């Protein structure tokens, strides 16, 4: 079977063969436990981890000691938010985040609300960006943490992290960011951006699944988080558990490649993305979702009105994308991210997310355009809403039998 074109790189990315090559020896001859201090097997594994730590640190502009390896961004988000909440209890119990965050942040905050945290969920503007004045107004003396994501996974908008961290710091709070979609794609520097804690993951940047990291600032200020797992006290006591050496080596290699190739890659991808988006946006009744100026280079989120996202994906079986349509989720609720932009439910149901990546070619994009146009036209032929729209019926005036 011919493989579909993969344009779902926000969900996960394929492993770069160069990353795999770097990892392989650590499954076999270099299998040691990086914590074994008394023999060569341990030293070799530790060397691999050290080199990886250096590469990760270089990519985000921090020191090696500030990197805590985890099982991924979900764990890093949990460790950062729960760890700060427990560590800084004395100071306050207020956390500020935004409604468009990933579930790993939102559900962690919800969990903490049960344990005495007060959480403010900032709304976003129509373009997906938070309102800085609203953030400023939400700050209180009890605010210990502001957690706002760097780039959004569904629409790709990039929040003004520098301004956000400045506001947080002005009020004596720490700034944490879930940068899972941004690290390795655009320049992220923890010092120029004023980041105190940052979560990210290898499998979004051509590394393996099941490994990620939390950056924890050590100077100005020295940030501490309470460990969420008890055990051998690895990673400076913040994350116990024998290190996943092959995974960490893979993360390191992935970071190294991203650092070296990011600049040209971002130019290439945004050109391809723009070509895809501009062409598809020329179709009647298609809408681009989210801010298009402050945006990751590889994401486009488009609603094709009067066709339903899941039906559309089924018609595009040679294209692997994702949709904010409810019918793809067990809850039957359309994407909360799109809804929080103020998108009506029917447009949220009609959305497709295209996520380009390192292995996306020009030819792929031309095919994707063709496949999408064909599928949208086909489904509109089947759509009673399209027919009514074409006849000039005002759909908002119809009394729909809600069910």
């Amino acid at each position, binding site marked *: 079977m011919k493989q579909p074109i993969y344009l779902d790189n926000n969900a996960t990315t394929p492993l770069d063969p160069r990353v795999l090559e770097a990892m392989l020896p650590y499954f076999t001859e270099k299998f040691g436990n990086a914590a074994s201090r008394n023999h060569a097997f341990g030293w070799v594994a530790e060397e691999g981890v050290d080199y990886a730590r250096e590469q990760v640190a270089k990519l985000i502009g921090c020191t090696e000691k500030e990197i805590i390896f985890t099982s991924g961004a979900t764990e890093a988000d949990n460790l950062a938010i729960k760890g700060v909440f427990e560590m800084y209890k004395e100071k306050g119990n207020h956390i500020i985040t935004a409604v468009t965050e990933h579930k790993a942040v939102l559900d962690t905050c919800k969990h903490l609300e049960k344990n005495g945290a007060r959480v403010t969920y900032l709304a976003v503007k129509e373009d997906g960006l938070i309102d800085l004045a609203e953030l400023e107004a939400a700050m209180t003396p009890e605010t210990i943490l502001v957690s706002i994501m760097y780039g959004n996974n569904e629409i790709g908008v990039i929040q003004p992290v520098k301004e956000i961290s400045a506001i947080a710091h002005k009020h004596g709070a720490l700034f944490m960011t879930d940068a899972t979609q941004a690290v390795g794609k655009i320049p992220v520097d923890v010092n120029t951006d004023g980041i105190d804690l940052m979560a990210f993951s290898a499998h979004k940047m051509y590394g393996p699944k099941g490994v990620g990291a939390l950056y924890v600032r050590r100077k100005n200020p020295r940030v501490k988080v309470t460990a969420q797992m008890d055990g051998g006290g690895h990673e400076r006591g913040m994350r116990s558990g024998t290190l996943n050496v092959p995974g960490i080596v893979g993360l390191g290699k992935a970071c190294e490649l991203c650092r070296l190739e990011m600049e040209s890659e971002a130019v290439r991808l945004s050109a391809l993305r723009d070509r895809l988006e501009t062409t598809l946006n020329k179709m009647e009744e298609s809408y681009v979702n989210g801010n298009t100026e402050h945006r990751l280079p590889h994401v486009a989120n488009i609603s094709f009105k009067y066709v339903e996202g899941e039906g559309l994906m089924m018609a595009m079986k040679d294209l692997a994308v994702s949709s904010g349509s409810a019918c793809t989720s067990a809850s039957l609720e359309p994407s909360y991210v799109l809804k929080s932009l103020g998108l009506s439910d029917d447009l949220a149901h009609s959305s497709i997310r295209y996520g380009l990546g390192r292995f996306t070619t020009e030819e792929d994009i031309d095919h994707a355009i063709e496949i999408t146009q064909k599928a949208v036209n086909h489904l509109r032929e*089947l*759509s009673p809403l399209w027919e009514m729209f074409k006849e000039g019926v005002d759909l908002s005036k119809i009394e729909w039998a809600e*069910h």
Partner: protein
Amino acid sequence: MAYSDKVIDHYSNPRNVGTLNKESKAVGTGLVGAPECGDVMRLQIEVGDDNVITDAKFKTFGCGSAIASSSLATEWLKGKTIDEALAIDNMDIVEELALPPVKIHCSVLAEDAIKSAINDYRVKNGLEPVVLEKSHH
């Protein structure tokens, strides 16, 4: 989630897509669902002298299972009497298309559309609408 072959077949080659003249007395139109819910189905029947459905057409905004359910429904309706059509149960559609539990509501929508088209036809022709039990989702 993988789709059954029958869903894929109806989805790729939908039967009876189209529009009948909704002003005609012989045509009953059912429009169910809501754009906000991600599914809208329009099903139309044309009824001959002896209460036999001579033609059926649909258009659906919805997922693959909803499109397949309505396509299948139009196929089943042709040649049936109104009474036989009223007896079509959504679970028959679920079974025929091997729909998974999360897709049952797509078949419910098709059953609702059939009943609503029949009622439209009945009312147009001076008959009492049949009382529909509220379908559950």
